[in-house]
């Protein structure tokens, strides 16, 4: 019998240690006995105290979070993604698991039978050493490339958790970059600078046959070139700092930081034996140490802008979540949190688009704008939810139209796919730029909106409400502005449209029932839960959108900012609008905290778990919702017959 599937599994495994150390035929034999396991998001594979499974696991797709209970609180010990191995305990001891393994996202695992694997690992010393070392070590830093592929032990300090003062952090091995930007000593200063700006790095290592000779940093350019001391055609060796401070591998972060302080440097070169006489294996920068610390927005921002793979972005995204958790724990004002998270999301989207354009054989045939819709458009997307986006391209001659669209559809397909990989689920309504319906030229978009606004049915209003909250993510802002102007010209004094939109806004009534109890979901999978999105956030968002459209205000898409603007525009309703602005912040924060706790969208809330205080806070928000709905009802003459 041929073994197409087993070979395919072996093909995957061979890229990761310890499987890369196995003989081809042995690996195929193992692959034949693999089980491919699917885990839904949030599913527990094994729990602390469970009897060891007969298999250990390799992540094929998705991510597994290893956690431990610490006085009733779940602590993340580590996160495993593609190619990482976990659940090794039964391989070594007949003991029960000491940790929980939970699917952080939808995950596919390859389960390796211990019975088949053990004889091989015992025969192969290298494999065995790798497993033992990794199992016993408590030093894996899953975010640094240098340690990629090392295994994790199940008893590990919680170094990757967000803690404002993480003492253990300094004892972690310093993250080493293996892709070092290097140049020979006779390179001109100009060429070296070009290389650095192309690679977006702040330093370049000067090497001769891979032996480090010197290092040049941004600072040297400022001090020695920009001052006129050296011309740009001078060889780089004239301005390099030499000798280079070198160390062997395995430096801890504390050692690295001390060394940098002592020598007033930002980079340490890692060589084979730790002297400047052997070959370079990597470089360690202050920046990378800061990145691995992971709770500094400006560092994350730089990391996003420099990222060179989708996987890297995915890891950065994970850190953004840690950052968010830290912000919420520290009770930082939500406005501030939203802004930072929005900027980081925005930078991620920009970076992906930038990289996808480069991947295409030709540059874009004309100007275009990538717009984000829905919550990202409103700058309210704290948790990763669905991606909603669209693309506007410049008007082109009729005969070029389809060709141009084909280009942008291809671009959008790439961008949508990568956004999905880093964690933004595809929009279930297919409201994405890769959908030919939402990848249109400016004129086509104008026609589209004209149709929606002139004859507004339910679907049209839904589309309008999604598309009115757009934010430009990439490209030419004139295109989206021109579209916004068009929308305003159509809606100005359009009482019919406002009335229909008002009716939709009121479709989700105030979430408090007659007896001031919460209205719960009555059926479906979330029966008896409170839907904070449908009953709290959406009515406010809808109200804000309608009122701001009525005032023809452009470029404010955030709900609380919209209400703050409305408070300025209508002093007589100032109090109500400020209360609405406040309510929208509270509800969003509520949802975000719930989402983080339960690893979901945070949309459905179990009221039983709320404190009295939280309930009162929610009820106060709902009062504002009811009042603003009343106002809309009178202002836009919404009758129940529409």
């Amino acid at each position, binding site marked *: *019998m*041929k*073994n*197409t*599937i*087993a070979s*395919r*599994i072996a*093909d995957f495994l061979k890229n990761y240690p310890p499987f890369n150390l196995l003989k081809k035929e042995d690996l195929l034999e193992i*692959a*034949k*006995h*693999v*089980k*491919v*396991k*699917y*885990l*839904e998001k949030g599913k527990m594979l094994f729990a602390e105290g469970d009897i060891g499974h007969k298999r250990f696991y390799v992540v094929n*797709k998705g991510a597994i979070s290893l956690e431990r209970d610490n006085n009733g609180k779940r602590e993340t010990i580590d996160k495993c993604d593609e190619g990482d191995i976990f659940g090794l305990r039964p391989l070594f001891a007949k003991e029960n698991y000491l940790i929980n393994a939970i699917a952080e996202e*939808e995950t*596919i695992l390859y*389960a390796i039978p211990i019975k088949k694997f053990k004889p091989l690992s015992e025969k192969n010393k290298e494999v065995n050493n790798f497993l033992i070392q990794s199992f016993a070590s408590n030093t894996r830093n899953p975010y640094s490339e240098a340690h990629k592929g090392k295994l994790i032990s199940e008893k590990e300090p919680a170094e990757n958790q967000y803690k404002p003062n993480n003492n253990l952090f300094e004892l972690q091995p310093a993250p080493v970059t293996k892709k070092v930007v290097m140049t020979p000593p006779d390179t001109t200063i100009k060429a070296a600078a070009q290389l650095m700006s192309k690679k977006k790095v702040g330093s370049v290592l000067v090497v001769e046959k891979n032996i480090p000779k010197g290092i040049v940093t941004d600072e040297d350019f400022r001090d020695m070139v920009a001052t006129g001391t050296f011309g740009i055609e001078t060889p780089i060796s004239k301005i390099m700092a030499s000798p280079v401070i070198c160390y062997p591998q395995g430096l801890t972060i504390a050692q690295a930081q001390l060394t940098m302080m002592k020598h007033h440097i930002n980079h340490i070169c890692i060589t084979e034996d730790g002297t400047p006489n052997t070959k370079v294996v990597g470089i360690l920068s202050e920046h990378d140490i800061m990145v691995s610390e992971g709770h500094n927005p400006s560092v994350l921002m730089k990391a996003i802008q420099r990222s060179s793979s989708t996987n890297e972005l995915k890891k950065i995204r994970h850190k953004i979540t840690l950052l968010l958790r830290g912000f919420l724990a520290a009770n930082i004002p939500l406005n501030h949190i939203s802004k930072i998270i929005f900027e980081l999301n925005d930078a991620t989207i920009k970076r992906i688009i930038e990289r996808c354009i480069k991947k295409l054989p030709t540059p874009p045939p004309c100007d275009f704008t990538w717009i984000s819709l829905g919550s990202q458009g409103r700058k309210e997307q704290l948790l990763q939810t669905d991606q909603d986006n669209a693309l506007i391209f410049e008007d082109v001659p009729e005969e070029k139209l389809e060709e141009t669209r084909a280009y942008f559809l291809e671009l959008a397909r790439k961008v949508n*796919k990568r956004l*999905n*990989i880093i964690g933004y689920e*595809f929009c*279930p*309504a*297919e*409201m994405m730029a890769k959908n030919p319906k939402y990848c249109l030229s400016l004129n086509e978009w104008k026609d589209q909106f004209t149709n929606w606004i002139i004859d507004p049915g339910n*679907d049209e209003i*839904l*589309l309008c409400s999604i598309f009115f909250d757009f934010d430009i993510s990439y490209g030419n802002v004139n295109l989206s502005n021109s579209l916004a102007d068009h929308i305003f010209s159509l809606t100005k004094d359009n009482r019919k449209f406002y009335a229909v939109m008002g009716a939709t806004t009121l479709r989700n009534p105030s979430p408090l029932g007659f007896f001031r109890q919460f209205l719960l979901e009555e059926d*479906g*999978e979330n029966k008896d839960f409170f839907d904070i999105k449908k009953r709290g956030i959406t009515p406010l968002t809808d109200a804000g959108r309608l009122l701001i459209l009525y005032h023809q205000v452009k470029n404010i898409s955030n709900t609380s900012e919209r209400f703050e603007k409305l408070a300025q525009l209508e002093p007589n309703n100032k109090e109500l609008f400020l209360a609405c602005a406040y309510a929208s912040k509270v509800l969003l924060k509520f949802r975000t905290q719930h989402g983080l706790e339960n690893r979901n969208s945070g949309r459905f809330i179990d009221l039983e778990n709320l404190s009295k205080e939280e309930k009162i806070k929610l009820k106060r928000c709902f009062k504002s919702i009811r009042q603003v709905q009343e106002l809309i009802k009178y202002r836009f003459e919404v009758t129940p017959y529409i």
Partner: protein
Amino acid sequence: MLNLFKKKPDNLPEFWNDYEAKFQEKLPEEITHTRFVVFDTETTGFDIKKDRMLSIGAVAIKNKSINIADGFEEYISQETFNPKTVKIHGIIQNERIETLTEEEAVKAFLNYIGNSVLVAHHAGFDIGMVNEALSRLGLPKLKNKVLDTVNLYRGTRIISNLINREKSYTLDEIAETYNIDIKDRHTAAGDAFITAIAFLTILGKLNTDGKMNLKKLFRV
């Protein structure tokens, strides 16, 4: 004329009787206890009557995992040769892959599937191909329950006027949505594996309330 309706099984071969006997056992109610066989056939073309199977590939799923050891991959020797399909399938006649006769392959397949629930992408076609082969051997049609991943996938799409739910989704489209690696596409076993991963993912999406059972799955 009466003969047509009263095809008595006394003269049917033993392997068929063995296969049939397995259906006396009732299927479990729970999805986790059910054995699903996800399969795909590679054929010389798309005409169920004229064309022939080149290979059958399958994997078995139980308790949300694919057991690679419980797989099926057989190639069928051809009497009629259609050069057009060589390019697509990479299965060249008389290549050094061990082949079975159609009868041997069908026999092995029946033994492998038993009373499991069959799953395929555009299942009607693959089931039709197997049934035609059975009929050439003078045997009745497959008795297994069948699920089609095209339908199941459709069931995961939201109900909205904004999308066309009647659309027939290709395996490539589903693989793109779920980000499934499409190596070995257009080999029976490779496609069966991709379909199996898609099937597991779809089950996850359909079972968000944890209450999905086999009965409900057939109603999607």
